């Protein structure tokens, strides 16, 4: 089963600052913009890249869920692509 929409959300967290900024304040609202299954929403809320990978997301995109986590929000890694 394709996880295109789930992957797209994570891609947008990487590329689109507007999506990232909104996700910081209202991640539930951001998720409504993508056609996600209940299982995918749960994995996103848990913020575990390994679970996203198990759902079929490319590992390079799974990483970007960590951009929302307080301990990694200011990480230097996000300042390069």
């Amino acid at each position, binding site marked *: 089963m394709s996880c295109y929409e789930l992957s797209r959300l994570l891609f947008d967290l990487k590329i689109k600052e507007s999506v990232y900024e909104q996700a910081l304040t209202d991640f539930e609202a951001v998720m409504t913009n993508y056609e996600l299954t209940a299982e995918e929403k749960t994995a996103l809320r848990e913020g575990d*890249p390994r679970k996203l*990978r198990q759902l079929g997301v490319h590992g390079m995109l*799974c*990483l970007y869920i960590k951009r929302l986590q307080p301990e990694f929000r200011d990480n*230097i890694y996000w*300042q*390069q692509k």
Partner: protein
Amino acid sequence: MPLVSAVAASHAPNILLEPGNEWEDFMDLHYSMAPKGSSNRPTLEQQKKLRRDAEAAFAVLREDLQRSQPDVLIVVANDQFVNFFWNNIPTFFVTIGDEVAGKFTRHRFQYRNHKELGKAIIRAGMEKGIDFSYGERIELQHTQNVPLYFLLREPSIPILPIYVNTWVDPAPSPRRCSQVGELIREVAENSKERIAMLATGGLSHFPGSPRIGEIDEKFDHQLLDVLRAGKGKTLVEHSVQELLQAGDTEFLNWMVVIGAVGDAKASYTNYMPDFVATGWGFVSWRSL
């Protein structure tokens, strides 16, 4: 005119991150996904030594490039979900915009893009059965910016970014990548300009994989041994799966340059595993 020079180098982000706080940040994120490797976490002194060694390796490559006085530098690299997504993954992509730009932390990069050379390569490919994707708008990312910082910090000549799909399955075979390099060599030989090539990426690493943190040093050394012997074209016999097993799919970028340099022996190689995620590799072909 024949190609005037060719080099290859890793593009791992931590090559350009500053030892100390920036490296620590990078490793905090990395080891949150690869906790088993954290016992090897490099000290500040080890970080500084790696940076010095990488700068020394890049200095050799830079001097070789400068000595060859190129008019343009073709940069063969891969995307990593910056310019391309699952709606369209090009196997080979040639940039035909006027300019290309990007950033890496506080560093900014902007170059003229040699679109005429790009179009010449695309047209030659269509004659020879290699149909490139192409487009005007791309953003330079770490896969180009890290080596360019050390090799062409001042945009004194135009570049030409060419992308190879090394990062998602299915990827092109090493043989096909070599054929693309042969085509570029033919275009260079028919050009009045002095054309140099840079391949980026590798060597062994497993980004986004459950094996993240592993480095297959043995495989990497075998690759470099082959390049020193001038037998790079024998590497077309490898399958993508073999490269994948060794964490070396970005070597597909190198295979394009290997196809272009033919049987030339690498005049310089250097290798340093970074203890974190990647075997950093550096090669120059001074005599083509």
